[in-house]
């Protein structure tokens, strides 16, 4: 791809860059600093329920005083109470397991789509995207009806005689995993499909010509070549799943522990904004590595023109 000279004049160019830049800076980046600041303060009964950030008109001494009042109490609280540590760990675990299952379900679908006749591929693509276009909340809600003890899945299994007691699936970790796999499936299928579709099938045919069985050809050729899609899809599922709220709330019940739900409860039920902020900051720190990995994978993929 040729590099052409920057077409816009200097001022026009600066304005162009500034508009989205400023918006994201103010509404995405700056809030994180505020969250961090609040995570260092104490809860208060007043509205807003935390000690004020800065008293701008109270002079330097009170500014210093305010700095002194910053404390890591909230973070120590998080470390102390096993509830939080467990919530983080279980969130990571559930998200990881869900990502693996989403990959296992999504890969064959993406592969089937990539190998389908060219004419029907756009239709298949639309069919994958369509559920995504309908409400996420609604679809999760629908699973309640399927997974509860009197629900359709149990009715179906009882009818078949496979089981004679209804399975308890709702309000367990299994339900959360099913919910995550279901909701995030398009996020896995789409990048996988994009990568698989671009792959030259002649490579697989060449491998088979040289003596590979179809399975070996898949393992040695297709799978490695589809890695960028696998990574993109996995990141798109794993990272948001760690902090997922709706699914654990609707399908997980009170016995399951996920950090997104913890944050929500801390904020809306306990009204403890500083602790919620601390929870958010720690979650952010936990996710920084996967997020950075995702960014770099995206940048590399864009460079290679994928």
């Amino acid at each position: 791809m040729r590099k052409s000279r920057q077409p816009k004049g200097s001022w026009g160019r600066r304005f162009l860059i500034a508009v989205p830049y400023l918006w994201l800076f103010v509404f995405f980046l700056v809030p994180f600093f505020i969250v961090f600041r609040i995570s260092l303060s104490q809860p208060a009964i007043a509205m807003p329920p935390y000690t004020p950030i800065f008293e701008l008109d109270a002079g330097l001494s009170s500014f210093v005083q305010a700095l002194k009042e910053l404390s890591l109490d909230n973070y120590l609280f998080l470390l102390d109470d096993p509830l939080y540590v467990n919530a983080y760990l279980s969130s990571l675990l559930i998200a990881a397991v869900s990502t693996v299952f989403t990959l296992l379900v999504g890969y064959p679908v993406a592969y089937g789509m990539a190998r389908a006749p060219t004419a029907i591929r756009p239709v298949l693509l639309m069919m994958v995207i369509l559920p995504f276009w309908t409400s996420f909340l609604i679809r999760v809600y629908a699973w309640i009806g399927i997974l509860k003890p009197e629900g359709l899945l149990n009715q179906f299994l009882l009818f078949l005689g496979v089981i004679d007691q209804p399975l308890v699936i709702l309000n367990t970790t299994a339900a959360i995993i099913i919910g995550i796999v279901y909701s995030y499936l398009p996020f896995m299928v789409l990048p996988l499909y994009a990568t698989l579709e671009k792959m030259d099938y002649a490579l697989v045919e060449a491998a088979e010509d040289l003596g590979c069985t179809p399975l070996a050809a898949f393992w040695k050729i297709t799978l490695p070549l589809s890695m960028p899609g696998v990574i993109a899809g996995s990141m798109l599922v794993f990272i948001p799943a760690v902090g997922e709220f709706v699914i654990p709330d609707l399908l997980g019940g009170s016995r399951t522990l996920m950090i997104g739900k913890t944050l929500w409860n801390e904020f809306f039920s306990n009204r403890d904004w500083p602790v919620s902020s601390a929870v958010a900051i720690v979650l952010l720190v936990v996710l920084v590595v996967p997020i950075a990995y995702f960014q770099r994978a995206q940048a590399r993929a864009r460079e290679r023109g994928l």
Partner: protein
Amino acid sequence: MAGTWGRFNMVSLVLGFAFLYLPIVLLVIFSFNESRLVTVWAGFSTRWYVAMLSNQGLMEAAWVTARVALISATVATVLGTLAAVVLTRYTRFRGRLLFSGMVYAPIVMPEVITGLSLLLLFVAVDFERGFATITIAHITFSMCFVAVVVQSRLLSFDRSLEEAALDLGATPVKAFFQVTLPVILPAVIAGWMLAFTLSLDDLVIASFTSGPGATTLPMKIYSSVRLGVTPEINAVCTVLIGMVTVGVIVASLVNKRRMRIAAGR
């Protein structure tokens, strides 16, 4: 061997799509259920649709949601397209790394984090929460999705079309609006639709950033689900699904024609 692969692909496609669509189909079916129960079929009835229409709170929430979605999608599309143009055309400027980080991060960021942080921002500057704050919040994360979609299209866009326009006397701005934009329009529209859906669908961020008098439909649905389910919800959902399906099919038919032209086939 080709036969087994072919059958395996078919089976996985069928199963995969069945898995995707089953809950939706069930939801729609039971919206027409005579009884309150969502699991036992008691006969065909449209009573829940009637009930839904007379539910004031539900209808108001739907109206708020629609307006937020329309405004935020449109603004997000403009901002996102700008961001995509900046990312593809300008390879060197100060803070580019930060900028691209800010564009990609919200896509994977858990919603509880974005919701909380935006709320704290609004509280810190004492901005009254309500319609405006939800809209701003939605614009912020939607624009990143739009940026990714449009950027994808821009990367495969034939630059020589722009150069031809410049060569023939168009300034860069004119070249963008007369040549580039019309050709990438399907992607921009896809971005708009994506932003619209994300807004329509959002529960977590709306819950954090809304205020009195600005309840969105997902918030209403969520609180109904927590309290106890009536098939009114199914009715609302079915209507939404129906509208979205029709919209998507129409849009993709229109887009298909445009894309064929843009690709020169």
